[in-house]
């Protein structure tokens, strides 16, 4: 807890680094092998579809520097557009999944009421909503709503699961100390659910990034990284398409990584080491 902040990322943890030496070596070996194979294939195939890694790296940096005239923005603008879309969809999903999940977990009649609806809509892939959301919600909110759906259901499931898995002895203990239903909810059930919410957030973030490309297939206001991928493909600049894919991967790894870190810290605190 009182760690040097840099140790958070395991960067300055020598013991752990040595312990994970083998893993690290294999990890690096895998990446090197992959890049070598990729490079070999790109030379062998000599196709625009399989640009060499150095072309993609070049495209990656170029996409940040150069404004794409048709889109009126560079990669930063696309990232900002995607993040904004993602952030709004995510915050909305959180704002709705939390109360609904808590209520569904806590109140049996609410569960009976909402459960059929949730079970009905959960299996529908968020991507399936893309065309109709465009018409119902327009070119700004349509894609946002796709993200919203992608994040909403995994989050909801985790919140409900969290509430339902509260240890009975904790509830008993609180009741013997005079807790009524409301304080029980405030002081026991909600705090207990927090790590589950965090797990839901981590899963939701992962799914959200998968949805963003689909969400931006249509009417993406201000561009977006997913939109950029489609655009680059449509004009046949495949190295830029791969660069866009790399950007999505980095955004995904970054946000999921932070979320995972917070989740682990919370789990430790909750005694679930």
């Amino acid at each position, binding site marked *: 807890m009182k760690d040097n902040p840099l140790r958070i990322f395991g960067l300055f943890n020598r013991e752990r680094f040595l312990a994970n030496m083998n893993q690290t070596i294999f990890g690096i070996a895998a990446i090197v092998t992959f890049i070598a194979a990729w490079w070999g294939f790109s030379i062998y195939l000599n196709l625009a579809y399989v640009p060499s890694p150095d072309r993609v790296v070049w495209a990656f940096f170029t996409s940040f520097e*150069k404004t794409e005239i048709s889109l009126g923005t560079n990669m930063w603008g696309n990232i900002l557009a995607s993040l904004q879309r993602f952030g709004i969809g995510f915050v909305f999903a959180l704002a709705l999944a939390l109360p609904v999940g808590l209520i569904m977990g806590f109140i049996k009649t609410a569960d009976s009421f909402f459960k059929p609806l949730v079970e009905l809509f959960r299996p529908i892939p968020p991507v399936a909503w893309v065309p109709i959301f465009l018409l119902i919600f327009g070119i700004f909110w349509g894609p946002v709503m796709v993200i919203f759906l992608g994040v909403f259901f995994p989050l909801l499931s985790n919140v409900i699961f969290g509430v339902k898995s509260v240890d009975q002895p904790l509830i008993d203990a609180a009741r013997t100390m005079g807790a009524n239903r409301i304080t029980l909810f405030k002081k026991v059930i909600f705090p207990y659910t927090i790590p589950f919410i965090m797990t839901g957030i981590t899963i939701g973030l992962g799914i959200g990034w998968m949805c963003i490309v689909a969400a931006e297939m249509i009417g993406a206001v201000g561009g977006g990284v997913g939109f950029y991928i489609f655009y680059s493909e449509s004009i046949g600049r*495949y190295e830029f398409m791969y660069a866009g894919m790399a950007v999505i991967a980095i955004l995904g790894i970054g946000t999921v990584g932070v979320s995972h870190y917070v989740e682990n810290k*919370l789990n430790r605190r909750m005694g679930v080491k």
Partner: protein
Amino acid sequence: MNKKTTIAAIIVVAIVVIAAVAVVLMQPAASTNKKIIYWTQIAPVQQKAALLAGTVDGAVGWEPYCSDALNDGTGSVVVWSDQVWPEHPCCVIAVRYSDAFPNNPADNQLVARVVKANMVATNWIVQTINAGSGTNYTSLIQMGAQFSGIQASVVQSALGHIEYSNQLTPAVKAAFANFTGMFADLGQISNLAGYPNTTAFANAITNTSYLAMAPDIQPSATILGSVHLGYLNGDLHQFARVVAMNTSLWGGKTLFQDYGVNVTSPAPYANGGAVMDGFAAGSIDMGYLGCPPAILKRINANIQIQIVSLVNSEGSAIIGKTPINSLSQLEGKIVATPGPASIQHLLLLYYCNLNGYQLKLKGT
């Protein structure tokens, strides 16, 4: 104890703040001297619904989707493409040159025969439209309705806006050069596939030899070979292929078979870029597609194609949601386009610039 809670809270607040700042930043800047029209990407098949829903205020698409929106009053014409670019080329037939095809005189014969059959079908369409009635006309409209999934009256209007012709005239080549130049200006291409200028490139990408062979080609009693032919989904620009494939018109076989070629097609492609990908994947030998994606991917993806016949010219329109019927009424509003690689997008861009408007992606 609250150190971690604080960190978690800071992270949450940071995310919310970033989202909020993003919302503010992404609002289109209000103050620029130039008059702005915004675009967004919506497939033509969805454009009418988007106009109805108020998602966009205008659209630029191809027939029959223009007529579909116009006929019931959802949209009003801002401008037809022929008013901006008279006789501008649109869809073409392209051939991919690979190790497998067409690498011998026999294969070249097959290409010429497909071009010939397309030409015969085109002439039949033009004559039938000019006649304006009769059994041929009725069956033409029916074929169009069936192929595009749009009602007959809409097909009828749409056919009035498409020019069906095949010759790759100097004017057509000049238009190819012009489109290539526009792509270069947009930064979508950074080279001309080794050619010194857009005119040289347009000449190189165009091969008129098959059209030149066509007048001498006669129907063949035997099948000489087969060709995989790609085309776009529901696009009435490529009506000649539909007519040529209709066996009831040509004595129990397709027009291609009449000229000695068995034509097979994979599932229709969604756009010209996908047709080009079909070439690269080896799924098709020849294909119907718009000339802009052919130019773009010829250069960027180095797909070795040549344009061997024109299919149609004109047949696109910029429309506004009724009562919008001029470009000035679209100022500050959003126009749907099929995407920045399409001829419709270029049309909108060109027409905006011509009238002193800047075309911008909504939100940038």
